[in-house]
């Protein structure tokens, strides 16, 4: 399928925002019928580059060629007309509209403003069939579909406009393993149809599996590319971080003490169905499993955010259910999986977010002096190496990794003993991930206990003392991480065992 000249070429793209140089000379080329993986840490410039490609932003310097012709989209509409389609990480579908309406949104076939519904339906069905998913009903509101199905609708929207360049931005970050496999089948199918595909992902194993070539961005520059199959992962990571990563999963000699959290036969409203485990002092216990297995719900019921139907929770000397307020007071804190909507108040400052659960000690009788609040937050900014302009900067301006550090700093500020961490490394760059692993190790060494939920098995096996797999609401027995391997755990999670 490969042609001599790339289908899309971006040359020496540069872009600055004020004094910050977001892109400082990026070269990217992708052939028709090829999947190019674009990798790099958060803040490396991937999203800026894609915004330029899709006409949302305009480059300061450099040029783009599409199908041998100069390509200068003035706005996203231009880019769509030229055949460049984006599928974003946060899906952009209208939940109340039907599948067909969503696919045709903005380009409905119409006469004098009246939508030709049967024609729209036909086109939408065509797009779904092209994706190999004629099973998705076109008249159902998108809100009723699963996340995986929604993504297919989103890709269908890209196809319906007849795109030739398709950008997939972190398409698997919210998918379960089986859906990821299905997505890959679909991507290969589109590649077979001669589309030029740019695939952005943090998951390097995926990149290796799905892409033909990879391009690494670092600090706004393209720093390396190569064949995905034949390049060792370690080499890619080194290119991304710009230094040798020696100890990816740091683990010091730790000793677990007595039981601090005992959960017995816990049942929530829908999930978990049955969960029992013990968490010891100085222990990191991992909870593995697929999306929808009920891992988040397990943490939420323990923390008092979701109701309990049956079962016992014993935290230190306290037993019985409790509200989040009580849990904080009993020395337990939680980091939410949904950083944007639950974990952090995005409009509020770093200082407010760090100290929100415990605003005491900043002044007499219920008062809060911002100066003292800032001092306290500043110590965490230093200790956690949170990159920000200061304690008063709203967290919305921080990168994903730094936002996550703020969310975790809240637990440190509160000085809790039991850390419930729900996907703490989701969507953050490799460097920040390693820092979080290191912090977890440090906490365990100091006798704190960590319950670590993750969809990414290698990190659980690397960081935890014991790992328990959750599958369809049932929590299986925890086993020493050393005795567990990835395929076994995956078998357990998918219910194959």
């Amino acid at each position: 399928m490969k042609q001599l000249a790339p289908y899309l070429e971006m040359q020496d793209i540069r872009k600055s925002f004020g004094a910050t140089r977001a892109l400082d000379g990026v070269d990217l080329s992708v052939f028709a019928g090829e999947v190019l993986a674009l990798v790099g840490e958060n803040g490396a410039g991937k999203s800026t580059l894609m915004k330029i490609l899709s006409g949302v932003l305009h480059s300061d310097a450099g040029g783009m060629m599409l199908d041998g012709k100069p390509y200068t989209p003035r706005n996203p509409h231009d880019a769509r007309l030229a055949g460049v389609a984006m599928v974003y990480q946060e899906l952009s579908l209208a939940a109340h509209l039907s599948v067909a309406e969503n696919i045709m949104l903005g380009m409905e076939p119409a006469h004098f403003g009246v939508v030709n519904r049967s024609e729209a339906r036909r086109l939408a069905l065509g797009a779904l069939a092209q994706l190999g998913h004629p099973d998705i009903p076109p008249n159902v509101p998108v809100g009723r579909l699963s996340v995986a199905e929604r993504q297919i609708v989103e890709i269908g929207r890209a196809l319906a406009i007849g795109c030739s360049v398709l950008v997939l931005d972190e398409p698997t970050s919210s998918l379960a393993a089986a859906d990821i496999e299905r997505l890959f089948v679909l991507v290969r199918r589109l590649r077979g149809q001669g589309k030029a595909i740019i695939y952005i992902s943090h998951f390097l194993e995926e990149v290796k599996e799905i892409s033909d070539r990879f391009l690494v961005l670092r600090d706004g520059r393209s720093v390396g590319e190569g064949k995905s199959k034949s390049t060792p992962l370690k080499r890619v990571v080194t290119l991304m971080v710009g230094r040798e990563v020696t100890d990816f999963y740091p683990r010091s000699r730790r000793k677990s003490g007595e039981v601090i959290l005992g959960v017995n036969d816990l049942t929530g409203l829908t999930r978990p169905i049955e969960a029992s485990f013990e968490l010891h002092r100085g222990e990191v216990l991992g909870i593995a499993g697929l999306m929808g297995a009920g891992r988040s719900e397990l943490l939420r019921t323990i923390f008092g955010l979701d109701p309990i139907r049956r079962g016992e929770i014993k935290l230190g000397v306290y037993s019985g259910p409790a509200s989040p307020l009580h849990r904080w007071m009993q020395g337990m804190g939680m980091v939410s999986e949904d950083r944007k909507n639950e974990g952090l108040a995005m409009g509020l400052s770093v200082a407010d977010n760090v100290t929100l659960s415990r605003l005491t000690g900043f002044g007499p009788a219920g008062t809060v002096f911002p100066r003292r609040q800032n001092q306290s937050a500043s110590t965490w900014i230093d200790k956690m190496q949170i990159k920000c302009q200061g304690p008063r900067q709203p967290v919305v301006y921080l990168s994903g990794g730094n936002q996550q550090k703020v969310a975790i700093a809240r637990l440190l500020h509160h000085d809790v003993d039991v850390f419930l961490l729900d996907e703490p490394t989701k969507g953050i760059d490799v460097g920040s991930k390693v820092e979080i692993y290191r912090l977890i190790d440090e906490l365990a060494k100091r006798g704190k206990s960590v319950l670590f939920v993750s969809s990414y098995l290698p990190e659980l096996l690397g960081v935890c003392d014991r790992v328990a797999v959750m599958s369809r609401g049932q929590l299986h027995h925890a086993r020493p991480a050393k005795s567990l391997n990835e395929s076994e755990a995956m078998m357990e999670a998918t219910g194959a065992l």
Partner: protein
Amino acid sequence: MKDWGRKVGPLTGLVIVFALFSLLRPDSFPTAGNIELMLLQTAVVGTGALGMTIVIVSGGIDLSVGSMVALSTVTIALLLNIGVSPLAAAVGGVAAGAVCGSLIGFLVTRLRLAPFIGTLAMWGALRGAAKGLANEQVIVAPNTWLNNLLNVLTDDQKWMIVPPGVWLMLILACIVGAFLNYTRLGRHIVAVGSNEQTARLCGISVERTKLVVYMLGSGFAALAGVLQFSYLTVGDPTTGTGMELDIIAAVVIGGASLAGGEGRVLGSLVGALIMTVVANGSTKMELPNWVQEIVTGGIIIAAVALDRYRHRRME
């Protein structure tokens, strides 16, 4: 940079409209007497805006404040007529506000009505209650010092600089501003407005916080009713019609976001002053009423559009 723009934006607007009318009517507009008058005219809406700022910062809205003002004037007049002391009557009016506020809090937190709907219902219900209590008539009350809160100062009162009602508004503004910024409960209110789920995750009782918010909102509306009573000297169940919109406009011009989490008390007061200055200046220019109303609409658009523009530039 951002904070600076937020703080100074509305104030700049106030200075501009004030300067404009001073240039156009140098003899009658920028006089001490007229400035005092404008402060008097702002006191009722300004006091209501204090409570509304709290409500809007928490991510809510209160459409019932105009009706609450009326109910408050009626309550005070009734209490004075049964021989209660003026202070007790005023406290009674404010207490009525707190009770109504707790009812709104119940609607919003227990019945889970959207604040717009819950307070829309109260907008009707409280107006009806005021009319029912007053037998659909204006209630004449005995003359007490309550009637003098918003009088233009006489010569031997000049030491007060501005009338007591205006002082009340200014002092309470300082207290509310400090409350939102420097107390635990105040920060909790801001956090609930910024992201309710985060607040819940952090162990803040969102329901209790909202209950306090609506009690304060209606309490300040009732206090605005005390000032309105002072101005009218009677209990009038039809007063304050549409005042909720003036109050919301003042808060919005002052830089608050209806999405919650943002807003400052000083801004809201400045917003209220801008509206008074425009109204007063237009009268001095002998412009008809409809021109003022269009200009006020334009100012709301300009204030919010400018704010959006600043927001966009930050991103």
